[in-house]
């Protein structure tokens, strides 16, 4: 048996106890276990779980449990851990044009973004969480709960990190490491409109920093299989879980292309490699 065959078979062990394997997968797993002591041992060790999950009612009961949203999905960590670092080199190669535009409260339907800041060519796409489900095709996935404090600690280690500013550009906004400030913007009372026109880039995560130093995840609340962001346009989010706190800034984390925001391992690697771009916009009172 080749190492590759053995490794392929090892990937199937997780399907053993849950009775997930198709006949050919089962045969491949057992054939490999006959030739490999470690794999055989893994299956023996898996046997109590196999026996436990023999109970179909239990399997379905557990599956029903998993349909519920786990508690603690709001990401919260202390502000001092948010020492954002972005490689200077990113400025030269930055391919993201992104902007964070503040929205007047919801009395301005369809976005209401400041026209002097928003990208006129951007297609408005309303992704208010409550309206996410019905329109977009493709199966829905839940967003991974990332261990952001640990990730940010990794980002701290990237040298040359100065806070990234967001400047107005031809296509939405261009991020750079310029020290020039774009000034503060008024804090939203109830909603944020975000114009994002990525020329190239991956999944995006928007968080808001509250006045007590904690952070809340603003966007997305859910992600889809194909993409988590429209190719360009405006999204609206309503800050939730603030519980009376006030947002003092918003930060946009842009993952490299190909990194799935729902894949914790991949996201962690991206942080470790300094490949995550962090854009920040401070909000005034």
């Amino acid at each position, binding site marked *: 048996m080749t190492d590759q065959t053995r490794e392929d078979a090892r*990937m199937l062990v997780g399907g053993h106890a849950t009775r997930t394997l198709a006949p050919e997968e089962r045969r491949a797993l057992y054939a490999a276990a006959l030739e490999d002591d470690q794999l055989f041992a893994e299956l023996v060790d898996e046997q109590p779980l196999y026996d436990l999950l023999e109970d179909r009612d239990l399997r379905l009961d*557990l599956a029903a449990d998993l349909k519920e949203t786990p508690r603690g999905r709001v990401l919260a960590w202390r502000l001092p851990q948010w020492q954002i670092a972005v490689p200077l080199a990113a400025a030269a190669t930055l391919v993201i044009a992104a902007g964070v535009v503040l929205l007047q409260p919801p009395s301005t339907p369809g976005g209401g973004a400041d026209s002097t800041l928003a990208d006129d060519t951007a297609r408005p796409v309303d992704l208010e969480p409550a309206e996410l489900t019905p329109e977009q095709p493709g199966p829905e996935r839940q967003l991974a709960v990332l261990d952001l404090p640990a990730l940010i600690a990794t980002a701290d280690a990237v040298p040359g990190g100065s806070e990234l500013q967001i400047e107005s550009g031809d296509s939405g906004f261009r991020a750079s490491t310029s020290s020039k400030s774009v000034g503060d913007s008024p804090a939203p009372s109830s909603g944020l409109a975000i114009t994002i026109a990525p020329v190239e880039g991956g999944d995006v995560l928007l968080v808001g920093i509250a006045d007590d130093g904690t952070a809340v995840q603003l966007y997305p609340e859910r992600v889809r299989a194909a993409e988590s962001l429209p190719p360009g346009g405006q999204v609206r989010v309503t800050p939730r879980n603030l519980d009376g706190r006030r947002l003092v800034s918003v930060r946009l984390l842009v993952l490299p292309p190909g990194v799935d925001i729902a894949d914790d391992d991949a996201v962690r690697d991206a942080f470790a490699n300094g490949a995550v771009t962090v854009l920040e916009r401070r909000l005034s009172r």
Partner: protein
Amino acid sequence: MTSVDRTGSVKTVAADGVLERLRVRIRAFAASRVGMDAADDLTQDVLLLLVTKYPDKTELEDLVPLAIRIVQFKMSSFTRKRVRRGEHVQPDFDTVVATRQSDDQWADPESQAERRQLRARFRQAVRQLDGRCRNVFRLKLEGRSFAEIRTEMGAPSINAVYLWDHRCRHKLKALLEEAGGR
């Protein structure tokens, strides 16, 4: 006709040599857990059961999972016997299988307790899964195949689903250990 000698060697093996290869694996596994002396006895016990009680099982898909179940049972019994010195009565494997099939599972109180503990720990660990792992595991428990999970979750290939599941299994194992070990 197949027979097993005192060392567990299979004299006449099934056409594809499954039993002989099982003997090697079982012996290696048992030796790694309970030592070589006990490993020979345990291997012999398992093979004897396979040959004498289950002569109709000749296919790899039948023999391997059955052997794994017996090995795990024998190992568990061996460990208990070792702990409870002087006690050497253990239920016959056939009895265990029969009681499970009759829905009076885990009649042995100690096994029942272990099962209850595992069930509680497993439920606790599963509930802590998040993101993709939560969805993958839910779909598995609902009875979907990996191919169906691929479609459901829009994975680029079935290998991607295998990889996700592999990683999720490791996460679940870690959560199980946090919940009290397995």
